[in-house]
């Protein structure tokens, strides 16, 4: 009954409504300069809390809507960061490879390297990389047992050669052996993979070191050139510590290889003629080269003095022989044809391939 009374409406209700409608119509036709102050007054009074609520809600919605796009941006940035790191690493490796190529100058091939999964080789030690595949083969001049190196040093040797690809045995392969020495050629030994526990994965060990010889931690070990595969003076690794073995007459040292298998992307395959020319000056620092030059100079002086002494001895012998013949009444015409016994000091010295690495000859084949 009360609802009915209310809804009936009265003249007052109609009047109020008409007035409000007229006010609304007036508001509609108000010029902007009058309308705006009125609207601003409402906004600054009753509208303040509502505007604050609306702004907060809109910020919430914006944050919610931006969440997905923000996540996408973060993901993209993360991926790009990973790519940048990979590119930076690759760039560094390529720069190092360029440096190595500049030092080698000739007689080598550059190849991309991919690891052959250990599972494919039936290797029981899963995750331990022992083989590499190269995208160059016999058509490019790769030969079996060719040395494979990286800018840091020894990587492995070519095991199988196909026309367009090759299989490389990494230094971590259990059958890998390499004759090694220190930079001063004082200590010699045989380097082989250290088949220890997983924490020493990819480490090497240098065995057969004479018991009287000791190596300091951090000493760099190079190839010795013996064995015919690797030329001398290619870095192999650095000494980590001495290993305790059952050998009483020799020492064994643990080496950290200079090349990390995980960093191998691009490698260099040496051609036989480049291996024969040697690596002197490619990795060995300038002081070592100067010493080698001094040794070569000293050897040359010694050879000259021996030759001069021999010549003097021969002259003396010839003079005495001529005098003897003349005193016997013989006619002497050509004394140079008389054979003379050789002097013991004049015999050719044995060439030590370790002490005297072959100097690079003139380039024969440009890469």
């Amino acid at each position, binding site marked *: 009954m009360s609802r009915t009374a209310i809804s009936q*409406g009265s003249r007052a209700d109609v009047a109020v*409504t008409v007035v409000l409608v007229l006010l*609304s119509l007036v*508001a*509609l036709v108000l010029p902007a300069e009058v*309308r705006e102050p009125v609207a601003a007054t*409402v*906004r600054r009074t009753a509208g303040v809390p509502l*505007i604050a*609520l609306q702004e907060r809600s809109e910020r919430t919605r914006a944050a919610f809507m931006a969440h997905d796009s923000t996540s996408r941006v973060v993901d993209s940035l993360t991926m790009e960061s990973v790519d940048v790191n990979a590119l930076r690493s690759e760039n560094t490796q390529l720069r190092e490879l360029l440096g190595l190529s500049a030092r080698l100058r000739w007689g080598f091939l550059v190849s991309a390297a991919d690891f052959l999964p250990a599972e494919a080789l039936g290797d029981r030690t899963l995750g331990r990389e022992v083989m590499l595949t190269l995208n160059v083969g016999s058509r490019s001049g790769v030969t079996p047992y060719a040395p494979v190196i990286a800018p840091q040093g020894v990587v492995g040797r070519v095991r199988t050669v196909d026309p367009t690809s090759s299989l490389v045995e990494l230094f971590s392969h259990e059958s890998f052996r390499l004759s090694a020495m220190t930079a001063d050629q004082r200590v010699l030994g045989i380097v082989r993979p250290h088949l220890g526990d997983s924490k020493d994965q990819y480490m090497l060990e240098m065995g057969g070191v004479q018991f009287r010889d000791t190596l300091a931690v951090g000493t760099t070990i190079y190839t010795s050139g013996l064995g015919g595969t690797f030329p001398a003076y290619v870095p192999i690794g650095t000494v980590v510590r001495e290993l305790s073995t059952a050998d009483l007459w020799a020492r064994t040292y643990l080496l950290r290889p200079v090349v990390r298998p995980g960093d191998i992307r691009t490698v260099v395959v040496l051609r036989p003629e480049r291996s024969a020319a040697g690596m002197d000056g490619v990795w060995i620092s300038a002081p070592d080269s100067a010493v080698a030059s001094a040794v070569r100079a000293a050897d040359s002086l010694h050879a000259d003095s021996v030759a001069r002494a021999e010549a003097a001895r021969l002259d003396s012998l010839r003079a005495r022989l001529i005098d003897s013949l003349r005193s016997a009444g013989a006619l002497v015409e050509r004394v140079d044809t008389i054979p003379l016994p050789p002097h013991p000091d004049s015999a050719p010295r044995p060439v030590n391939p370790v002490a005297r690495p072959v100097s690079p000859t003139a380039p024969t084949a440009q890469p």
Partner: protein
Amino acid sequence: MSPARIIRAVAMFVVLIALHYTVRPLFASRASVDFLVLALLLAAVRVRPGGAAAIGFALGLLMDSLKPGTFGAASLAMTLIGYAASWLKPIFFADNLPLNAFFFFVGKWGFDALYLVVGRRLQGSELVMQLLLWSPLAAAMTALAGVLLVVVARPLTEAGSS
């Protein structure tokens, strides 16, 4: 009407206005619930037509202050909707939920029609699309929310009346 019921009605009115400025911006849909129209319609059934028109005018003025481009359009539409809702409540606002839903639906659609026509913000096909597609959808959403509100708020109003 008892003071308790007046307080509850005012509280509901304020809450609906707050919801209009908090929930609607979250969805930002063209077919979202219009809590201001709901507040006006629920208030209109409790007051005389002149009072409902005044409430509508105040709410419209609030809306217009945030959209100065159509200043006066929302005031006019809300005033007329408030007066009409209060005048027609014996017919539509019975204890019948479908009828209540229709009441909310017509109220929202009517408001949109008046607002769009008077405000002249849309013209041509856009106006037709808004009036025949988006406004009915928004009216349906508003009707659904209104019915839910009536169902939820009924125990309170009954407790207050007993």
